[in-house]
């Protein structure tokens, strides 16, 4: 199963929100959608959900125009909210029915999901009597109640304590393993790194970067080395003297950052350190974090990352 967005544009009056989005998301994986506030993520999600019609371009499922009825869809909007004055089970059944389930199937699924999240006893309570974190878990149940094949999660873990977050993470992981197509939008980069192999970064209505996180990290200049050692000071002094290998050496926080003259000098440096008998804890090529990649892609200050990502 492959969901594709082809040349999607959307304007709201003068405001050009999406300027030609091309994306391909395969099932059985979690796809991270990143972007700063107002980048057009929600608009893009709403176009997939058929709430908005794109001005041009189309959404395809396995090459055919996508209609919402073709898949069971689960959506966790960033703006949380359900019916505060209704009981938990009542509204879960309703949302299950809207997603296409029969009432009894919806009830069964709701109860088993509640049970898994340790919320079985809340079924008969009014939503507004629950804590904020628990309300969020109920919303999660509503998203997953119909065993969706396409899941869109907008900031799924915000406002949750680590234990609750873990419970929900397990559910998301299961979804991916079951072959669902998971769209994941978040500002919490650690979650994106954990769940998503592929990401797309949306900025100013365009996709500015897209691909596998690992490749993005590897795809930059690999001539910066970080060495950790109990003997950082002596090590720094030694490497500074090797001008044929190191262009620049910095000592910070129990680690030495070494800028090699060329990437190919890496084995030479490694064997030199070993020959000198330095007690090396770790020897690694510096890789940008996802946060670094995100900031670099979404701000105009290009080149903030030494070694250059652009």
């Amino acid at each position, binding site marked *: 199963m492959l969901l594709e967005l082809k040349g999607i544009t959307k304007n*709201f009056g003068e405001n050009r929100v999406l300027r030609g989005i091309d994306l391909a998301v395969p099932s059985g994986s979690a796809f991270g959608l990143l972007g700063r506030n107002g980048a057009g993520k929600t608009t893009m999600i709403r176009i997939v959900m058929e709430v908005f019609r794109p001005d041009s371009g189309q959404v395809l499922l396995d090459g055919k125009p996508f209609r919402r009825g073709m898949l069971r869809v689960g959506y966790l909007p960033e703006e949380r*909210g359900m019916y505060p004055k209704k009981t938990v089970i009542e509204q879960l059944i*309703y949302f299950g029915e809207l997603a296409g389930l029969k*009432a009894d199937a919806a009830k069964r699924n709701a109860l088993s999901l509640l049970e898994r999240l340790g919320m079985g006893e809340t079924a008969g309570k009014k939503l507004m009597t629950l804590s904020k974190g628990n309300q969020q878990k109920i919303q999660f149940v509503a998203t997953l109640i119909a065993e969706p094949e396409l899941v869109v999660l907008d900031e799924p873990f915000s406002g949750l304590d680590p234990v609750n977050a873990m419970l929900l993470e397990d559910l998301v992981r299961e979804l991916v393993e079951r072959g669902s197509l998971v769209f994941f939008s978040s500002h919490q980069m650690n979650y994106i790194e954990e769940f998503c192999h592929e990401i797309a970064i949306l900025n100013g209505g365009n996709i500015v970067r897209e691909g596998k996180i690992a490749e993005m990290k590897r795809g930059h200049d690999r001539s910066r080395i970080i060495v950790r050692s109990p003997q950082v000071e002596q090590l720094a002094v030694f490497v500074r003297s090797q001008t044929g290998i190191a262009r620049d050496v910095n000592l910070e926080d129990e680690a030495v950052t070494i800028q090699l003259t060329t990437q190919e000098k890496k084995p030479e440096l490694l064997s030199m350190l070993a020959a000198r008998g330095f007690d090396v804890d770790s020897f690694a090529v510096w890789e940008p974090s996802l946060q670094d990649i995100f900031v670099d892609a979404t701000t105009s200050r290009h080149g903030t990352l030494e070694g250059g990502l652009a």
Partner: protein
Amino acid sequence: MKNQFLPIFRHEFITTAKSKPFIFTTLLFALAFFVGLGFPDFIGRSDSPKSAGGDVNSFFEGIVLVDFGSKKLLISARDAKDVDAQSLADYLKEDLGFEEASVFQGAAQELEDSVLAGTADYALYFTSPLEYTLYMSQVGVTDISPYQIDEAVLAKYRTDGLKKLGATDEQAQAFLTAQTTMKLVATKSDGNDSAGYTYILIALLFITIMIYGGIVASSVVTEKSSRAMELLITAAKPGALMFGKVLGVGGAGLCQLCLWVLAAFGGYRASGEYWKETSAISSLFEGGNTRLLAYTIIFFVLGYLLYSFLFGAVGSLVSRTEDLQGTMMPLSLLLIVLFYVSYFSIIFNYTNSTLIKVMSFVPFTSPLAMFIRIVNNLASPWEIALSLVLLVAGIIAVGALAAAIYRVGVLLYGKPPKIRELVKLVRRR
């Protein structure tokens, strides 16, 4: 996907029917109708209301004759030589039961002064046997004492006249107390007193459309302000959401109405013969009115649909419950004006006017206007058919427009848009 309407309809129906205010008003009014009609003693009417003149439902039914037992009367015939003031005073005292009726041959001003000073309650100043001035301190709206006095004065004049012609007292009395028995037939109405229940049904149509429309609007706003709309709008088509809500609330409303009618019917039955004489009420419940009952339901359903689509659209434009009243105002005003124009057409009897005729074809006004014309037998079958066709066409058009507004409105947060902005938004979509 295909079957979303049904769960939405069921959800809205149950939500409305289970809400506490709804249950409360349902029971309260059902009880009021049942007790009010079934046990009239309870609301303080111990005697069956008497209709003057048999079948004619008198307008004066509720007005009580004045008791003159504590009143004082003065009569002056100073400027009317052929009036026997003393015998008139005796007659009035006897006939109307004044505490005191005496002759005071003063000038008009003197009589007025004595009423002003309170020494007399009524003063009559005659200029000829049939021309006189009546002084009294105040005349209330329902005070019919001047007419009672006038009637007695006239009766005295006639009795005297008859006696002069040689009739005995008894003969004169017999002439004067003779009564006709009249049966009124209005050829253009269906033999009932239509005005009575037209008032009731028009008011019922207006109030229910207003209330249920308001429920639709506020329930949309609640979904928006709780942000449940974010989920709903991605889970279901806006059209299904809107129609499901309008029909769900309307269904609950119709059930409420039916329950009220049943309660009223039960009360009417329980009262036995009590209301039989009051045609405004009995004609609502006695047989032969199924046609009107059917029209009541038809116009309730159609009128409700037309307006609640608009109420739903208005609700979708508002993000906070506090803003709802203001945004609903134009629509509420339209309904109120419509109601009063219709209502006054019955009171001032212009139901057959061009205004009402035109209104009975315009979709927004026809639910009340055409209903009035039907009740008064002023509409021919083809007119009724045309009006209904136009109304249904209007509902379809308004429903489509409302769905378009709704689609745009539910995702707007913040201040409700101005009409011009709204037109732009709807076009853009």
